[in-house]
Each structure stands twice: as C-alpha cells, then as structure tokens.
C-alpha cells in the first residue's frame, strides 16, 4: 500500500541519510539518491497504472487525521500521477547528468537536487494554498542553490536576480493566500471553491495576487528576464530539470488553482500566454546561445500551455489531451535537448557543427526538435491539430494566428540550429568525440511510448493505417548501419511492394500520382546505387518522404492528410539539407513549407468546424460560410509547395543545392505533392469566389505569372541546377494555370504537364547531376564541349530539352497543344498568351543548358572527364524510353486520363481515334507526327551522310577565327551572360521583388527581436520593475473590462 | 616658347635648346632627367599629348637618339625632347607610367632597334616581326637588301636602275638637259 506522502517522505529521508554520511558523494550516496527517485518514479507509475486500470479511485489524503483547513491535503488522481511520473522520471535521469557535479561539490549539492524534486512533488500534490507557497519557496531556494553548481560570476548574478524576483513573487503569493483566507475562511482548493463564487471573485485582490503569482511562476513575457538568465547561465543539466520538471509542476499548479482565480481571469491568461509564446520565439530568433534559446522556448511553451488552460472553448477532454501532450512532449524533449547541450558543452549555435559526425547526436537533436515543433507522429502534433480545430469552431482566428505564427518562429530558430548542427561551418567547432550517454536516449523512448499512449483513442488511423509506413520508416532508422546499396535495394523493393499492394485500391488521380510517387521514386532511387559507403541518414529521410507522399494518396481524413503532409515535408527537408551548401536554402524551404502547412492546418480546422467535427476529406465540398476562406487557406498551403510566385523563393536554392540524386526527387516527385493537393482541393471544393473575385481566375493569372517569372529567371541563371529549378517554377505555373481553368481540357493539360514535368525534370536533373558530379562545378560557363566526353548524358539532355520546350514530336508538344485548346475553350486568351510566351522563353534556357554545357569548347581541365556514372545513367535511360514511348503513342497514357476526367467534367472531352486526338477545335496525331518526322529525318540524315562520307574529323580549335588561331578554350566559349540582350530588354521583369519582400520581413522580425532583447539587461532590479509593471498592466487589463 | 626653353634650361640639365619654328622647339636632355622633364612638361606646361616616340641610329657616334614629341593643344605648340643612349647598352627608362600609349611605341622601338625599356608592358612580345631572329632591322648595320634577296625568292628578271641616270635617259633620250 502506498501513500502520496511518500513523494515527500522518500526524498526527505534520502536527504537525511546522505546528509548524515558526510560530504563525500560516493557510491553509497549515489545509490541512495537513485533509490529515492526511482522509488518515487515507481510509485507514480503504480498510481498511473492503478488509475488507468481503474483499480483505484482518485482520493485525497490528509495529514494528521484532521481535515482542512487544519491539515494539509494531498490529492492523488490520474493527472497528478502522470505529472509526478514525468517530473520524477526527469529527476531520475537528471541524476546521471549531474553525477560529476555532485562528486565535485559534495553531498550537499545532491541534497539540494533532491529537495528540489521534493518541492516539485509537493507543488503537484498539495491542495493547500499556503502549502503551495511553502513548496514554491523550497523549490526556488533549491533552484538558486543548483544555479551555483556552475562556478561563474554570471551564475551568481543570475542567481541573485532569481532570488530577488522570487522574493517578490513570494510576497504576492503569501498576500494572496492570506487575502483569500480572509474572504473564504479556507486555504484548500476544495473548500475555497465551496464558497459562493460571488464572494470570492468580486474584485478580490486575493485572486489578483494569486493569478499574478501563478503566472510569474511560468515566467510571462516580458517579465521573465531573471528566468532566462538562469537558463542561460546555469549548468544545462540544471536547466534541464528546471525546464522539464519545474515548468511542468508550475503548469500543473496553474491548472489546479485556476478555478479559484475564476473565469474572469481566463481571457487575460490567454493573452498573456499567447503573447509570451509569440514574443519568446521572436526573441529566440536573435539568439545564438543555445541555452538561452532553449530558455525562451521553455518560457514560450509554458505560455502556450497556460493559454490552453485559459481556453474555455475547449472541452475538458480536449484540454486535458492537448495540455498533457504538450506538457509531456515539452518536458521530455526539452530535458533531452538541455542534456545534449550539457553533454556537448557547446554554448553557441555555431559550435554545434561539432556533432556533425555523430549520427546518434544528430538523431537525438532532430528527434527532440521535431517533437517540440509538433511534427507527426509525436503527440504534440495531435495536440496542435486538436487545438487549432477547436479554435476554428469559434471566432478565435487571432488566437489561431498567434499560435501558428509563434510556432513558425519557433520552427525558424530551431531549424536554424538544427541546420547549423548538421551543415554549419565546420571550422568554428571543436569536434566532439563522445557518443551521447544512454540517459539522453530515454526521453526519446518515452516520447515514442507517448505516441502510443496518447493517441490511442482519438487518432486511430495511426494504428490502423499508418503502422506499416511508420514501421518502414523506423526500420530504416534502425538499419542505417547497413551499406547504402543494401538499403537502396530494400527501399526500391519496399516501394515496389507498396505499389503492388496499393494498386488495386487506387483510382483516377490517386493512381497517376501513385505512379509518379512510387514508380518514379523507384526509378530515381536506382541512381542511389552509385553511392558507396553507408550514406547515413539518406534512407531514413527518403523513407519519411516517400511514406508521407504515399500517405497523401491513401489518406481518408484531413488529419491523416496533414499527418502525412508533415512527414513528407520533414523527410524532404532532411534530404535537401544533405547538400553541401544547402543550409540556408533548406531552412527557407522548411519555413515556407511550415508556413504553408499552418495555413493548411487552419483551413482544415475551419473545414472541420463547418462540418461538426467531421474529418473526412469528402467534407471539402461543404465548407459552410467560410468556404472561400478555407479554399484560400488550403490553396496557400499547396501553392507554397508548388512554389507559386511570390512563394517561390525557396525553390531555386533548395533544389539546386541538393545532392545529385536528390534534386531529381525533390523536383520531379516532391513538387507533385502540391499539385495533388490542388487537384484534391479543386475537385473537392468546386468553383469559389470571394466577394466578386472569382478565385479561379486569380489562380489562373497567378499560374501564368508564375510561369513567366520562373522561365524568365531561368534564362538569366549561370548555375545549371538553379536554371532547372527556376524552370520547375515555370512548369508548375503551367500546371496551376491549367488546373484553374476547371474544364476537361484544362485538367487534362494539367495532368500532361505534371507527368511531363516529372519525366523531363527527373531526366534533366539526373543528367545535369551526373555532369556536375564529374566536373565538380555547377557554373555553366565553366563547362563546355562535354558532348565528346559524355555523349549519353548529352542525349539525355537533348531529349529532355526537346520535350521540355514542347517541340513536336516529343511529348512536351501534347501539353502545348492541349493548353492552346483549353485556352481557347475557356476564353482565357491573355493568360494563355502569357503561358505561351513563357513556353517560348523555355527555348532560351533549354538551349543555354545544352549549349554551354555540352557544346562549344571543351575546357583543359575536363579533357579526362568520364561519362556520368553507370547508375546515374540507368534511370535516365529508362526515363528516355518512357518519354519516347509516350511521345509515339500518347493515347496509351492520355486516353484513360480523359476517360476518368469525364466524371468531373463531362463536357468537351477529347475524342480518341486510335492515336488521333480530336478536340472541339483541332486534332493531333502523335503517332503520325513521330512517323513523318522520323522518316524525313532519317532520309535527310542518310542523304547528308552519304554525300559527306569523306568529311575529315577535326578538332575543337580548327575553327575559322579571322586568320588567327584560338588560344585557350575559355576565351572561345561563349557562355557567360548568355542572354544579355534579353536582360537588357526584359530583365526588369525578374527584379527580385519577392526575394526583397521576404528578406525585409525576416530582417524586420530580427530587428524587432533585437529591440526587445534590450529589456533583458541582466539587472535584477530591472527584472523586478518588469514584474511590477506587468502586474500593473494586468490589473488595468482586467479592470479595463476585458 | 621662350619660357619653355627657360624653364627647361633652369630645371633640367641638357644642351642644344633650339627653336625650330615659332611653335616647335627641340632640346637634348640628359637621360637621367628625361622622365622628370616629361612629367614637368605634361603637368606644368600643358604638353599633354605624347605624339610619338622615335629613334635614330647614329652608328658613327655609337649612339641611339630617342626623340619624344609632345604637343600642347591650348597653345598649339610642340616640343621634341631628345636623349641619347649608347648603342652597346641601349637601355632607356620607360615612360608608360606617364602615357599608357608609350608602351606601344616602346615595344616598337624594342623590336626595331633593340632598345630596351625595362618594365614597359609586353615590351618583349613580338609586335610586327613575329619570330624575328636577326639583329633588329632598323639598325643601320642590318643589310635589308641582302636579307630580302636571300629570303624572299626574288623573281628573276627584275632590273634595277639608278633613278637619276635612268630617268634622265628616259625623259631626255637625246641627252639635252632643260
């Protein structure tokens, strides 16, 4: 039989015993400490299991056999038990991190640590206001003691400020206790709540002070400088428990005492919480000291959870779920992060590049960061989802906005950190030799456990639908030690099996995209055989991405869709980050993706609200009064993924800096996810207009402009892969334009464009990637004449550009033909003209691509370059085969598409007569075109070959050069600033307007952060002033009638 | 013009300051002061244009004469500065720092006379005579006619005449003059 008092007694006893054994912290003392905390962990675990299984009922234990107010009451129920498990678990793990400290500092330091946990346990358990005050003070003093574990002046200053601020809080708290007691005659929650609420709440100073004290314990912005100094300066191992366990206890106290404070204070609580969340993350942006950043994050998360407590709209169950998930994830992840920081000993973000070559460190860092950011499959993801959905049901758009904006900012600095760790400048970092000790892994395992625990009831699809893909992903994480080729085989096999099993269940667009995602992925993965060694991290990321992509197809509900969407983003981010110089580009990719995902999330939330909480994707058709808004929000999410102007600036960098076999994947395959989303959205929601603006017309114009800007930017690019990336922007502009037409031909065009883009861009990126691999540069003007060294790559690129530019007889022409027909059909003449002009511009960069790389003069240093690697060529050959096949018999691919499109748009379908397609306006026979062109071409070729059979093969400098001879290849190769006249005439169209806008935005945010950060001077007095001003502000806020 | 002579005389060592015309004067300066003198002429006296640099081979005196011709556009006057360098060791200071065009003249002089201008850009690169292997052709000890006859396959049957007697004969076959 256990008693809640054990949570106090065990640590106290251990304290006594260790205290008695002298100052030396030896094995015995360590064992005692471990035992005490392990005991509390066990007991709380027992309680959790007992409450969950129902063998025990929640009950209140009083001291000394009497009842409150003359005794202290401890309440034990499931929330308490869970919180205690969390807190004490962290305490137990934290012991290992502090072992060396205890050895140096002696038993007394260990005792401080135990006392801190004793106090936290008390805070959680007690029902008594004054008792709460006592425990708070013990925890504060204990923490101040632990700050001294690290001997530095800064620590001392932080500790002093801390004590000053806590002193003020203690005054507030004790005043509130006595005031409430005076009014109600009770000190314990239950009895206080029994009194008439009117008596309690009527402008009671007690409630006000209590509210302040509770809030201050959570360090609200901007009155939180003292806590941040502690986070920054204390040993990270201390910060870990301070953040993980301390905040959890504080939040629990808030949850517990909030009823006393009363409903009137809920709204201020939300505001304070959200402001704290938002501004903490803004401030964290400007930071580069990891511990302080994590401090801001802790403060911000606490604010968010506090705000959740204040949200009356949430049902009890929802609130419990959201708060519990967020709290648990925060505690474990933050603990894990602080311990990692403790273990590496790095202070600045830039130093974190030192963990570069330690996969386990990287894994843990990523794991905790993405858990904190609310990525699937972590509970925080579902919490965020539920929160946004719940808020969407009411007029709480601003709350949604604040939460999502804050999350975005949080993502910004966290991902930057992660990026620096993985890809930062290596020179600034001392490499770390150790591997992380086991205990840092434990929170990760616990988080994994939480996934199962917390999601069981509400998000059942994880268990029913998602476990195979998740197992697939986990498998690759576990098998990462295998050689790359083995994993590649597994991956290809896995995708093949996936397709085999999925094939019967998929129809229509889902089937097309499954072909692109899975079969396309398989073809592109063949290139992976080229890589030797282990390629750590590549396959887990790919598994994440492919699973995410396929999940989009199988998703039946919005939450499922979003789940996979986020996984896909995550995987692709990791893949892009693998590039050599991809750090900033991966970051901007991720941020844009997150921004898009958050607008999508709000859209889904509104949708669910309009459908009484139904999450099925079919509900897209019934958006209620907010239909247009939902449409815009969701469309924004997808348009970010398809890189539509002005949301396109992430794409060129991200796609070009990725590895040679990643670029084709992210370009050819990944972008289609956005297209699929758009199709889903448009098919689901139908025509939309906002006010008098037809949204589809707007989308059409947007597509046309994107196509033009993307293509124009491509022709001025010196970097081959960036050129292709810009070209992708343009191509997806076509797709958007075609989709927005909302008629049969338009959608057929879009499908053709999407398929073509997949085939061609995969081919080109692979070919160019192979070339780049060999010549080790991406600047086209540094290449030239490579046709002699890489004839196969040349053929790839040639087929690619002929198809890309839409010249008959290859498959690109199908898209052009359809787009003309659709343009005339829908009456979008001017957009159509822009699209076709963009199509012409394609010629320019296509020629540039092939000329400057393969034709012209071969450079000195490339004279011994070999053909691209075999395994890079294999997928290219397959893709070329597919392109030629589809070009010859387009009906094989297009007829089925047209057939099912008639379900959506029965009118104006193409009529197929063998390989001959007839539209309302024209006709086109791909087979015949191929035949005539082929015969003529062959005839002329043989004729020329015959009459010219004696031609002497000469070399590259045997050119007419005005009687001179060329001296160096560089001087004879025209490649730099290739389209100067075009630049002169139309260059103004590609002025980096969007880039400037986004840059200014980010600079502005940083400037704000820098401005606010001046508040935190490190002076305890100013912190106390903040506190008091904050109190005054809250006072007026509430009195002001909010 | 007189003040130019005056200034040159007072500032720089040299001889033969002679006024050829009202707007043209020549002076012979010591090689050591040449650059300073040219700089002075350019910056102080307004002779901003380097018209040419040329050389004369005084084989009898064993000297090369280098002439720098400058022009003042506001006063429409010219100044020629001569310096002498020994044939045996023909080195002259380069003035490409004053006029960039001088580099080309100096390159030409180097090629044609073998006068060296250390530091002048591309001065050693062949200018007109790609692959020339004889002594520089403008030196008077180089026998042009002999070289041409040995090298350029003269077409047989060519007759040469002394112009004076030939023209006399041709114009006044009867031998009567005037």
């Amino acid at each position: 039989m256990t008693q809640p008092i054990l949570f106090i007694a065990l640590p106290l006893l251990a304290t006594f015993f260790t205290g008695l054994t002298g100052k030396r912290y030896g094995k015995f003392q360590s064992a005692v400490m471990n035992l005490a905390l392990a005991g509390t962990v066990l007991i709380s675990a027992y309680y959790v299991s007992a409450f969950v299984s129902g063998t025990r009922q929640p009950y209140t234990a009083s001291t000394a056999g009497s009842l409150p107010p003359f005794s202290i009451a401890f309440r034990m129920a499931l929330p308490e038990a869970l919180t205690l498990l969390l807190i004490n678990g962290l305490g137990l793990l934290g012991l290992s991190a502090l072992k060396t400290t205890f050895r140096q500092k002696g038993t007394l330091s260990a005792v401080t640590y135990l006392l801190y946990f004793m106090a936290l346990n008390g805070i959680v358990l007690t029902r008594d206001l004054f008792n709460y005050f006592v425990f708070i003070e013990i925890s504060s003093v204990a923490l101040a003691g632990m700050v001294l574990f690290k001997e530095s002046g800064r620590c001392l200053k932080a500790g002093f400020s801390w004590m000053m601020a806590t002193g003020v809080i203690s005054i507030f708290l004790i005043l509130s206790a006595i005031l409430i007691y005076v009014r109600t005659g009770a000190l314990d929650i239950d009895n206080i709540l029994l009194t008439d609420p009117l008596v309690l709440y009527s402008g009671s100073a007690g409630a006000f002070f209590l509210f302040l004290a509770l809030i201050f314990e959570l360090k609200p912005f901007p009155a939180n400088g003292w806590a941040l100094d502690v986070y920054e300066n204390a040993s990270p191992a201390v910060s870990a428990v301070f953040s993980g366990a301390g905040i959890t206890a504080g939040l629990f106290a808030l949850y517990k005492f909030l009823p006393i404070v009363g409903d009137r204070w809920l709204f201020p609580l939300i505001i304070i919480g959200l402001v704290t969340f938002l501004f903490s993350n803004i401030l964290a942006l400007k930071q580069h000291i990891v511990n302080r950043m994590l401090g801001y994050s802790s403060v911000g998360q606490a604010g968010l959870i506090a705000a959740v407590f204040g949200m009356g709209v949430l049902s009890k169950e929802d609130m419990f779920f959201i708060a519990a998930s967020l709290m648990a994830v925060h505690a474990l992840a933050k603990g894990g992060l602080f311990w990692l920081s403790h273990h590496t000993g790095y202070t600045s973000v830039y130093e974190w590049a030192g963990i570069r070559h330690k996969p386990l460190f990287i894994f843990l860092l990523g794991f905790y960061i993405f858990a904190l950011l609310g990525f699937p499959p972590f509970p925080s993801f579902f919490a965020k989802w539920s929160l946004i959905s719940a808020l969407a049901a009411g007029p709480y758009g601003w709350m949604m906005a604040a939460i999502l904006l804050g999350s975005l900012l949080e993502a910004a600095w966290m991902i930057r950190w992660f990026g620096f760790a993985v890809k930062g400048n290596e020179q600034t970092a001392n490499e770390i030799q150790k591997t992380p000790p086991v205990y840092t892994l434990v929170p990760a395992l616990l988080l994994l456990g939480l996934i199962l625990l917390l999601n069981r009831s509400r998000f059942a699809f994880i268990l029913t639908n998602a476990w195979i893909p998740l197992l697939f992903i986990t498998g690759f994480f576990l098998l990462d030690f295998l050689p790359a080729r083995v994993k590649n085989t597994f991956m290809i096999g896995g995708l093949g099996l996936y397709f085999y099993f999925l094939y019967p269940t998929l129809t229509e667009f889902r089937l097309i995209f499954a072909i692109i995602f899975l079969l396309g992925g398989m073809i592109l993965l063949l290139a992976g055989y080229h890589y030797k060694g282990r390629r750590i991290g590549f396959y887990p990321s790919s598994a994440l991405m492919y699973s995410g992509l396929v999940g989009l197809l199988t998703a039946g509900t919005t939450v499922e869709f979003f789940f996979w969407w986020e996984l896909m983003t995550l995987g692709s981010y990791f893949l892009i980050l693998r590039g050599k110089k991809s750090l900033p580009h991966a970051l901007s990719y991720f941020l844009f993706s997150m921004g898009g995902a958050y607008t999508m999330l709000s859209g889904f939330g509104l949708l669910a609200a309009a459908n009484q909480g139904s999450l099925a994707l079919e509900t897209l058709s019934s958006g209620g009064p907010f239909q247009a808004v939902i449409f815009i929000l969701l469309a924004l999410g997808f348009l970010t993924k398809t890189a539509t102007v002005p949301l396109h600036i992430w794409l060129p960098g991200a796609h070009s800096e990725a590895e040679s076999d990643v670029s084709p994947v992210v370009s050819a395959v990944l972008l289609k996810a956005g297209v699929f989303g758009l199709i889903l959205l448009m098919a689901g929601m139908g025509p939309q207009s906002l006010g008098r603006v037809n949204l589809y017309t707007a989308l059409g114009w947007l597509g046309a402009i994107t196509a033009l800007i993307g293509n124009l930017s491509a022709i001025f690019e010196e970097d081959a892969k960036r050129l292709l990336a810009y070209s992708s922007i343009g191509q997806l502009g076509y797709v958007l334009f075609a989709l927005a037409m909302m008629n049969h031909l338009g959608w057929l065009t879009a499908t053709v464009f999407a398929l073509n883009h997949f085939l061609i861009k995969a081919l080109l990126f692979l070919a160019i990637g192979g070339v780049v691999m060999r010549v080790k540069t991406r600047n086209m003007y540094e290449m030239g004449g490579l046709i002699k060294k890489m004839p196969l790559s040349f053929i790839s690129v040639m087929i690619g550009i002929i198809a890309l530019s839409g010249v008959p007889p290859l498959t690109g022409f199908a898209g052009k033909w359809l787009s003309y027909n659709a343009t005339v059909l829908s009456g979008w003449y001017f957009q159509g003209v822009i699209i076709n002009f963009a199509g012409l511009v394609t010629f320019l960069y296509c020629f540039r691509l092939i000329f400057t790389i393969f034709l012209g003069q071969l450079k000195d240093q490339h004279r011994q370059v070999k053909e691209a690697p075999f395994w890079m060529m294999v997928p290219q050959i397959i893709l070329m085969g597919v392109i030629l096949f589809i070009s010859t018999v387009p009906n094989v691919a297009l007829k089925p598409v047209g057939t099912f499109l008639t379900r959506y748009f029965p009118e104006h379908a193409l009529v197929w007569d063998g390989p001959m397609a007839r539209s309302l306006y024209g006709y086109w026979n791909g087979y015949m075109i191929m035949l005539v062109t082929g015969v003529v071409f062959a005839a002329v070729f043989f004729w020329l070959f015959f009459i010219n059979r004696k031609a002497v093969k000469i070399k590259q400098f045997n050119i007419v050069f005005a009687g001179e001879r060329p001296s160096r290849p560089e001087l004879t190769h025209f490649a730099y600033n290739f389209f100067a006249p075009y630049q002169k005439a139309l260059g103004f169209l590609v002025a980096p307007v969007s880039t400037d806008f986004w840059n200014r935005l980010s600079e502005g945010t940083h400037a704000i952060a820098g401005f606010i950060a001046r508040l935190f001077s490190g002076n305890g007095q100013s912190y106390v002033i903040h506190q008091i001003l904050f109190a005054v502000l809250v006072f007026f806020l509430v009195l002001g009638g909010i | 013009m007189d003040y130019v002579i005056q200034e040159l005389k007072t500032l720089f060592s040299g001889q033969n300051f002679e006024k050829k015309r009202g707007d043209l004067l020549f002076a012979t300066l010591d090689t050591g002061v040449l650059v300073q003198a040219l700089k002075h002429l350019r910056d102080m006296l307004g002779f901003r244009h380097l018209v040419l640099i040329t050389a004369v081979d005084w084989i009898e005196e064993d000297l090369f004469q280098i002439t720098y011709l400058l022009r003042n556009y506001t006063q429409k006057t010219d100044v020629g500065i001569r310096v002498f360098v020994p044939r045996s060791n023909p080195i002259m200071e380069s003035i490409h720092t004053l006029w960039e065009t001088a580099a080309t003249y100096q390159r030409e002089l180097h090629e044609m006379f073998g006068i060296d201008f250390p530091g002048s850009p591309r001065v050693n690169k062949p200018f007109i005579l790609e692959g020339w292997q004889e002594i520089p052709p403008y030196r008077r000890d180089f026998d042009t006619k002999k070289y041409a006859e040995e090298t350029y396959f003269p077409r047989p049957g060519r007759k040469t005449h002394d112009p004076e007697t030939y023209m006399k004969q041709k114009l006044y076959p009867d031998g009567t003059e005037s």
Partner: protein
Amino acid sequence: MTFHWMQLVYALVSLFIVLNVGLIIQGIVRKIGARLGRRHGIRWYQLYLDLFKNYAMRSAVSHGIMFYLGPVFRLSGGIGLFLFMPVIYGSVWFQNFSGSGDLILLTYFIFFGTLGMALGAGESGHPYSAIGITRGLSQTTAAEIPLILAIIAIAVQYQTLSVTDIVAAQQGGILNWTLFTNPLATIAALLGFLGSMMRSPFDVVMAPQEIPVGPPTEFHSNFLAVLQTNRAIFPMAKTILYVNLFFGGATNWPVLIIKVFLLYMWPVFIGVAFPRFRVDQSIRWFLRIPTLIGILAILFI
C-alpha cells in the same frame, strides 16, 4: 486517316515544286533588290548554281556528330513543316500529311529545325555561332507573341484550329479572307512575320560583318548546301502557312505561288527601307506595337 502510298508520291512532287519555287522566288527577289539599287543583280537562276556548287564541293570537315545533325534537323524541320501543311485547298492529295496535326503543330514545328540547327551550330565550337543563336532565339520569342495573339484571335474567330477548316471558312470571295474579316489579327501576324524572316531590320542574327553570318559560320560544302535547300523550302512553307491563315489559302498551284510571292515581298519591302535593330530594341518593339495590335485583335473579335 489512312495512309496511301500515293500520298508519298504527291508529297515528293509538292516538295519538288516548292523547292524550285523557293529558289526562283528568292532569286527574283534578290534581283528586284538589286534593281532597286540600280544594279543589274544576280541571274534569276543564280541560287541553283550556288546550290549545285556547294553540293559539288569535294572536301568537307566535320566538328562532330551534332555538326551533322544540325543541318539535318534544319532541313527536316523545313520539310516537316511543309508536309504537315495543307498546301492546296480542295485537293485530296496535296493535303500532304496535314492530318497529323493542326495549327498548333505547325507553329511549334517551326522550332524543330531552329533548335536542331542551334545544336549543330553549337557543336562547331565557334563563339559567333552561339552569339548568333542567342540573338536569333531571343528575337524569335518576342516576335512570336503577336503571332500567338493572332492565332488565338483567328482560332476564336473561326472556332477551329484546323488549318484546312480555316481556309475553308475563307472561301467564296476576297472579302472572306481573314485579312478583311479580322484585319487587326492579320496586321499583328504580319508584323510578327517580319521577325521570323531574318530580314532587315531584324537580321542582326546573321550580322555578316560583326559575327560572320552568325549560326552557320562553320557550315560549308554539303552542310551549307543542305541549309540552302532548307532556305528555299522553309520560308516558303512559313509563307504558305500565312497565306492559308490570312489570305484565303489557294485552290491551285498558280494562285498559291502568286500569293506566296506577294507575301514574301512584304518583309523584303520592309527590309530595303529600314536599317537594322539591335536585339533588345527589336524585343521591345515586338512587345509594344505588334503586341498591342494583337491584343486589340482578340478584344475586337
């Protein structure tokens, strides 16, 4: 559409006709140009001689496989463009292979040869070739805009993209020609036509003194002969397309030749009257007046 072997024969016949017509028309045009400059000018059959001579050159050098394929692409582009076009309206056989595709095929097939030629010229490794191609491509993209506008305008006007149907709609009198039913589109297209004919003021591509003849700098002997063959066929094919679209097509060869000749004179007239544009100037020019006229053409259908 079923295939008959006779089609092949007729295709070859029409190809032969158009080759000769092209050579002679261009010879005559140059003669006219010379006469305007008070010269006697070349003989009308001079182009035949040049063609024969070039085919008769004994030696040739090759820069590589694409150097071969460039002219091949170019000539196939020209021949293909011609073969995909209905030449004589109402004739069963002189439709050639126009059943393979419509107007859009023709407008895009124009680029087949251009792109291939660009590749061939690129392989020669001569910088002037590349400069010429960038100029050509840049200018062409701009010149196509009025043409696209005009094509959309007439597609909307006739509700079809089939060239045969467009010609059919223009039968029955001169006033039924697009020239009169849709003058704005015709003007826009004719202005665009100037840009695609490589004549002054849009001939900076070849700029003989500056970048000796541009793309084909390195082409000689038989390669050049093939290009010359194309130069006879390709402008003719393009002109026939315009005749079909805007000038009522033709029901027999003489009418076709007369119309082609007259239309071919249009860029010649402009060419002798105006000096040369730089590329950026011509891009701007195409994007101003002709584009405006094209937009008006669509607005006033």
